[in-house]
């Protein structure tokens, strides 16, 4: 199967469980499992190529100019990780089906899980490092959703936030590191980067790139000092923990270190940074894990510790270290996923994960006991289990590693860490399963249904098989290791086997196991010491740092943004004026090229009216109704101005928009207070006045200078004027620009308009659904209402006039291509005609006669416009290419048919729908409880018996 499909399948499949929530839990889990299974099988079809040592590569150009291409590569390393991700993913899905309770939204869970799975597969298959970064960030985001899946738990939300903050910051650092790396090599393709070891390591930017990339890896893989987020992420449902912390999320950092191993490793910087971080993490995680009472916390810290182990192995920079690391990745994934699932089973059945409240479970849960014990023994490093083999190799590698010129440092620490690792593994078995049966479990524990124990059992079978017959896994591990080495180092001759003879590693292993048993025997006194010892709490430090950053951010933003709109509007205005002044004062002004036109008396009269209305608005704005009338005058004068300066289309649009805006504001004023009280001081008004006058003068000066000079370059409108008729088939250039030259713009604009109307509708719905509803219904009008709500004259007039207005609208629409008019204007005119019916005959009357919902009209408009655009694809032209022809159907005159007219129809419908939906939403607020809805449009109807007055 194509690599594209393998990566895309989880993402596409993520849509299904969310949509199928209604179909039931079985269906949700089933479809998720099927999607993963197809991806898994698809991956397996590539197995022969990988086995033959080949590399599968596919790619398409995405942003080639930026070096960002959608290229995927599958080699043995990627194949290994993808198998882990998809394979363990399948087990997790099966397990989660039984684990999640009825209250959990299963569709949501599986959607997140598939998103996460897709992102992980994307990371391991990416060839382009920029693409890899995209997937990398996607894992941070989707794991955030998964960790915080139980939204009602504060720990879940905090844990998710912490994980996102830490891994997100690391991701940012890594972006920088990868960009540097790409700059050094001159390519963002991994396949190229991996061949340029010498170039990269010789570059002066090698160290910054290394540090930044390692920051990303260490945060993701929970390496010291970023290990603290992982235990807090344990608030997630157990299937998530099992998935994220055994096979996927935390292994992403490891994967990247392995992937970059050929070019980044082998230098002293790499060795010191990676090895020491790994060592510290391994020891620290193991020690803390021993003293954790929460089963999942114990496993979390043990994961931290094992990740440290793998990191340390990669840090040594030797081929044998890489071999051991790859082997341990496999082993750790198997036993740790099994252990997490067992912990989930115990939590599920015993209703507690607190080790102190458990014990003696071997009698009650024999199957779980067997699974968990085998997995834990493997973790402890007991022979004939796979954990022993890789731990042995780790100890062997440790004896060969000298850090800070101290030969015993690494072996001693590795043994120490293994000792604690054995101890907590034994504690897990001893304190949970062994011991006497108790009678105070929170619930009655028993073995779970097979759906829950089969997945971990399968993994434990692998644990044993690899442990007993390591030669089965050896070829695969070596193949993957060869991919890690990438030809930079010789593959070591080191057969993976159980008995190596009496080598130092064996003694260290024995020390660890015996020491682990001793530690467990001394657990009680040790715990007292541990509890008494002061130690830093990572969460407190993290909270302290985040609180500090928030405070600092507030310190910077609050003086500017204190929630007072007036304050930042003032600041913004002053800054804009100041910047403009600076540009004007420092720039040079071209000479005047246009002649000042003489002012005609009619223009002066219009100007006077506009200025008078505007000033009147400022001085009388406290009377809100009056200010509405004044702003109407302003709008009218602006329309007249458009007519005067040769813009008939604009004038028609402006005047119709003016009508609907005023109706809208009147509707709003119905609810708002009628007067604006005097609140600001004289001083404040002076200040605002000064700012306003400065802004006005600045704009005026700019407009004036602008108007007296010609454009620097030839305006592109020359092209529009020349081609409007020839290419667009219309003589009204403005309309041709709208529906043809810049049709894409217009298409976007009608979508925006539709969205605005839907926002208004949604806000109205939420208002009417909330506490405001009661207040609205019981609202007492603050002014006496008119006696006749639906004046007969107006009702009759609007109905008579309706067909005429529709005809005018139709006419304006049709002639739009050649004369002033078009979809926008026609839509507004028709809207006004419909609004008139609402106003005259009432909301109910009009609604009862509404045949199509306004949402539908908006939608059909956008759809028609879009389909018109798509239509040009069928004749192999780009989106929205228009065409036109002249046809003649006798006995009519010859007329023009243009696809642009169809597009304009879409515009028309969208405008009608949007305007009507907005106004209708507003008027829905106006209905009141004590005014009964009436079926009758007219209060006075001679054909009807007189009814008692309806109004108060």
């Amino acid at each position: 199967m194509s690599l594209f499909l393998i990566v895309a399948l989880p993402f596409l499949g993520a849509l299904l469980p969310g949509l199928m929530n209604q179909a039931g839990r079985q269906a949700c889990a089933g479809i998720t499992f099927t999607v993963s299974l197809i991806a898994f099988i698809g991956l397996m079809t590539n197995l022969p190529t990988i086995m033959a040592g080949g590399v599968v590569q596919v790619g398409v150009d995405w942003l080639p100019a930026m070096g960002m291409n959608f290229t995927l590569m599958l080699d043995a390393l990627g194949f290994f990780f993808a198998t882990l991700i998809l394979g363990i993913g399948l087990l997790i899905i099966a397990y989660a089906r039984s684990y999640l309770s009825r209250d959990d939204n299963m569709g949501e869970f599986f959607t997140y899980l598939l998103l996460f799975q897709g992102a992980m597969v994307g990371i391991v298959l990416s060839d382009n490092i920029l693409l890899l970064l995209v997937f990398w960030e996607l894992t941070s985001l989707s794991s955030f959703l998964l960790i915080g899946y139980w939204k009602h738990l504060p720990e879940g939300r905090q844990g998710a936030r912490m994980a996102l903050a830490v891994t997100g910051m690391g991701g940012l650092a890594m972006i920088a590191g990868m960009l540097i790396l790409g700059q050094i090599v001159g390519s963002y393709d991994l396949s190229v980067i991996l061949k340029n070891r010498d170039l990269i390591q010789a570059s002066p930017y090698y160290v910054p790139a290394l540090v930044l990339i390692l920051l990303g890896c260490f945060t993701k893989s929970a390496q010291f000092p970023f290990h603290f987020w992982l235990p807090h992420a344990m608030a997630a449902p157990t299937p998530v923990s099992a998935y994220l912390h055994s096979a996927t999320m935390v292994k992403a950092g490891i994967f990247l270190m392995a992937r970059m191993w050929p070019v980044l490793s082998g230098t002293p910087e790499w060795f010191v940074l990676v090895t020491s971080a790994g060592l510290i993490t391994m020891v620290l995680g193991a020690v803390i894990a021993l003293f954790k009472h929460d089963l999942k916390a114990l496993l979390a810290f043990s994961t931290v510790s094992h990740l440290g182990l793998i990191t340390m192995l990669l840090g040594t920079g030797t081929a044998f270290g890489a071999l051991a690391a790859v082997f341990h990745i496999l082993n750790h994934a198997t036993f740790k996923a099994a252990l997490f699932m067992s912990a989930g089973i115990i939590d599920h059945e015993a209703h507690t994960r607190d080790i102190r409240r458990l014990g003696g479970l071997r009698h009650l849960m024999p199957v779980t006991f067997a699974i968990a014990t085998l997995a834990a023994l493997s973790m402890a490093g007991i022979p004939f289990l796979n954990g022993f083999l890789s731990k042995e190799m780790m100890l062997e590698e440790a004896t060969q590693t000298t850090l800070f010129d101290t030969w015993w440092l690494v072996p001693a620490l590795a043994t120490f860490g293994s000792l604690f690792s054995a101890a907590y593994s034994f504690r897990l078995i001893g304190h949970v399963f062994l011991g006497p049966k108790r009678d105070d479990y929170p619930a009655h524990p028993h073995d779970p249904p097979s759906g829950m124990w089969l997945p971990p059992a399968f993994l434990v079978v692998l644990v044993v098989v690899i442990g007993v017959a390591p030669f089965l896994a050896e070829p695969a591990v070596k193949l993957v290791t060869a991919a890690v080495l990438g030809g930079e180092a010789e593959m070591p001759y080191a057969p993976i086997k159980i008995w190596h003879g009496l080598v130092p590693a064996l003694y260290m292993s024995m020390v660890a196991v015996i020491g682990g048993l001793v530690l467990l025997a001394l657990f009680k006194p040790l715990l007292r010491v541990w509890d008494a010892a002061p130690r830093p709490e990572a969460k407190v430090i993290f909270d302290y740092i985040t609180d500090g950053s928030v405070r600092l951010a507030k310190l910077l933003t609050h003086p500017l943004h204190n929630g007072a709109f007036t304050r930042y509007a003032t600041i913004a205005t002053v800054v804009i004026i100041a910047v403009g002044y600076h540009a004007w004062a420092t720039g040079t002004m071209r000479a005047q090229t246009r002649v000042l036109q003489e002012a005609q008396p009619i223009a002066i009269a219009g100007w006077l009216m506009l200025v008078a209305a505007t000033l009147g608005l400022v001085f009388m704005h406290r009377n809100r109704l009056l200010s509405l009338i004044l702003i109407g005058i302003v709008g009218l004068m602006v329309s007249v101005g458009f007519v005067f300066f040769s813009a008939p289309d604009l004038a028609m649009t402006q005047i119709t928009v003016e009508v609907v805006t005023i109706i809208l504001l009147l509707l709003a004023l119905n609810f708002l207070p009628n007067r604006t009280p005097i609140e600001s001081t004289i001083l404040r008004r002076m200040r605002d006045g000064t700012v306003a006058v400065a802004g006005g003068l600045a704009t005026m000066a700019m407009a004036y200078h602008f108007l007296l000079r010609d454009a620097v370059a030839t305006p592109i409108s020359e092209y529009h004027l020349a081609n409007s008729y020839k290419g667009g088939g219309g003589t009204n250039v403005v309309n041709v620009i709208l529906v043809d030259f810049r049709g894409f713009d217009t298409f976007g604009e009608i979508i925006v308009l539709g969205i605005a109307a839907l926002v208004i509708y949604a806000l109205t719905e939420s208002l009417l659904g909330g506490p405001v509803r009661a207040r609205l219904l019981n609202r007492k009008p603050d002014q006496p209402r008119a006696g006749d709500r639906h004046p007969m004259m107006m009702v009759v007039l609007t109905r008579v006039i309706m067909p005429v207005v529709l005809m005018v609208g139709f006419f304006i629409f049709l002639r739009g291509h050649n004369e002033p008019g078009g979809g926008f204007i026609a839509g507004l005119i028709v809207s006004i005609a419909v609004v008139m019916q609402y106003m005259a005959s009432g909301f109910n009357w009009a609604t009862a006669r509404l045949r199509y919902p306004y949402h539908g009209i908006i939608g059909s408009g956008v759809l028609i416009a879009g389909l018109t655009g798509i239509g040009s694809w069928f004749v192999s032209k780009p989106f929205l290419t228009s065409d036109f022809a002249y046809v003649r159907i006798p006995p009519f005159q010859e007329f023009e048919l243009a696809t642009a007219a169809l597009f304009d129809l879409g515009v028309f419908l969208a405008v009608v729908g949007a305007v009507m939906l907005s106004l209708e939403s507003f008027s829905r607020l106006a209905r009141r409880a004590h005014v009964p809805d009436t079926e009758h449009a007219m209060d006075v109807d001679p054909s009807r018996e007189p009814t008692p007055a309806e109004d108060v």
Partner: protein
Amino acid sequence: MEFLVASAIGVLTSAGIYLMLRLRTFPVIMGISLLTYAVNVFLFSSGRLVVGAPPILVKGVETYTDPLPQALVLTAIVISFGMTAVVVMIALGAYLGGDDDHVDDPVTEDAP
């Protein structure tokens, strides 16, 4: 003529800014509407002022005004209606929900 248009833009801007800085929602909406006029007229005037030469192609006529700013302003006018409607709705919702039509909402230190 140029001075008339420029000064009209200036007056509209001035009044718009002043009203925008008021404390209640309704005058602020009025102010933003005035600013919309100012901006639209300004954009329109970037095609320079031409009297009696509409951008409708007629045989034999050589001078036309610049059609492009007109097309851009036309959609701007319609969009500004949508935006005004949304702002009005938000203002109305805030007033109905909180019985207060102030635009300022100074943050308190302990706000979550």
